[in-house]
């Protein structure tokens, strides 16, 4: 019983994180051009992702949707890095999403407080 209940809770937390993950990635890129490791670093700090593999499909999707674009940069150690930067569309979407999230956060906080 213990396991069943707690796995469900973890699963729900994961679902919540998933919803805001794209918004967070977009914000990170908007602040400063970043490559995967930078983004991972920040998301891990915020405990928003657990395994790095989660990030790559999201990055690809953002790029394919035209919200971000990237350029290659040589690296001193390791393979060349893909630096992501936000596009104008991305900025517009972000400006839409941010107040939306704040409203949601305030509303949820009001209810559960």
């Amino acid at each position, binding site marked *: 019983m213990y396991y069943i209940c707690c*796995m469900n809770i*973890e*699963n729900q*937390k*994961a679902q919540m*994180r*998933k919803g805001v993950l794209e918004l967070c990635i977009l914000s990170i890129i908007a602040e400063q051009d970043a490559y*995967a*490791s930078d983004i991972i670093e920040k998301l891990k700090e915020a405990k928003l*992702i*657990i*395994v*790095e*593999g*989660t990030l*790559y*499909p999201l*990055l*690809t*999707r953002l*790029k*394919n949707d035209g919200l971000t674009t990237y350029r290659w940069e040589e690296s001193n*150690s*390791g*393979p*060349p*890095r*893909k630096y992501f930067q936000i596009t104008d569309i991305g900025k517009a979407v972000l400006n839409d999403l941010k107040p939306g999230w704040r409203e949601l956060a305030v509303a949820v906080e009001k209810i559960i407080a």
Partner: protein
Amino acid sequence: MKKTVNINVSGIIFHIDEDAYTKLNNYLESLKSHFHSTEGSNDIIDDIEARIAELLQEKLGQTKQVITIRDVNEVIVVMGQPSQFAEDDTHGETAPSHKTSSSSKRFYRDPDNKVIGGVCGGIGAYLHWDPVIIRILFIISLFAGGFGALLYLILWVVIPEATTTTEKLEMRGEKVNISNIEKSIQEEVSSLKDQLKNLTETTKQNLRRSGASPSPIEQVLKGVMEVLRVFGRILLIIIGIVLVLVGISFFIAFMAVVFGWGGSILIDSDVLIMSFPSSLNLILGCSFNPFFIQASLLILFGIPIILILYSGIKLIFRFEGIRYFGITLFNIWLIGLVIGVFYSFKIYNLVKADATDQQRIEITQPVSDTIHLSYSDWGPIDELSLDTYEVFDNISLYKDQERNYYLIPSVRVEPAKGDQVEVIKRGFARGKSASEAKTRLSMVRYNIQQTGDTLFLDHVGTFPQDDCWRGQKIMVTVKVPEGKYVALSKGEWRIENEYSFYTRILDNTKLYQMSSSGLDDVE
């Protein structure tokens, strides 16, 4: 010493141990299969490979030049298993990778390889057999009472057709055969070994770090669970094999009964033996076609047998269940139940009323002290062919030119109350209504004739074949005054007295004396 290979990950060259290479390769394969239907899957894989190259680069230093399996394991933990991408649960540990590849096998009808509905082609693809073999088996099963045709129709309805490429790949999946089962068990045993090894290592490390940490106990428990899991798996396979064997024997027994394989069944050791189809025909043939009853019996008993076989095979081969298989079978079973109940009422209606008939046969009283009882000739039946008849209860199925059924009478000899010999003939039959039962009874022919002191009883009663069996019976009672003698001729007689109550077959005429309790032997 270990063999290493060179690999190129995202443009960087690594020396890597062979086992580590295999592990990394499997991991990348599982990622590819996870993302293969996602948009931009190549980009995703490239990005992940670049990141892996970065992480591996960090593992290497001045003194360390080769990537080991431990490094690969750590990278995989950081990147995560495909199962974690989907759910992204917070369990940091890696799931065993062999789970992902083997579970995607499904049962489909094969549209590229079909004669009628692609069912045989699909089974062939699933089992990796030549569909021709399956088709031949199906054709053979058509001769065995049409079971195959019914099964084919059910499968045609139940199983979806493989239309997309993914479905076609899933249809073939991994080969299901004994060596693969063996392989999967071996894989599990070896992964168990690995885990135990890891367990001891981590336990040692933990002990070194802090003796009071609870995690070693957890680890030991986990190891025990692993061992139990593998034993459980082996046990399930054994149970599966037993289920399949049980299912097959039920199937054979069931087919033997319903379709009369092997000719006849033994109902009782002294009452013979009649095959199920002919008894069904005898009882129902004149009222309606027994096909639906056979079909409903087939469904009512066949579906549980199919389910036993199915779950056995599922336990052995561990394939993903066929969609809606159980619920579909259950629905068909319910249909069978409805048909069965409907016909039960119908049959009950056919036999709910009965009629009896009692008749005193006028005879001239015997002149001597001895009355002779004898069976008249068998008539159209000659004794030589007697053992080829099918007998059901007291009916003998024999078709003469007039196509009659033969009814074996039960004859009793009892003490009479007065000093007169009396002969009483009783008849019994069932039917939809009392009048129908009465009509049926009147169609039964049975004669008793007298010549001097001898009574000739018909050896068999008859009823016409276009009538059917509704429990028709003939009982003859001969009452003989006490002290008189009874001579029983060759044949089968029931001898009743104080001491015995049995049927005896006489080879020659035998004399008995009537006492107050019945027939006594005469020395």
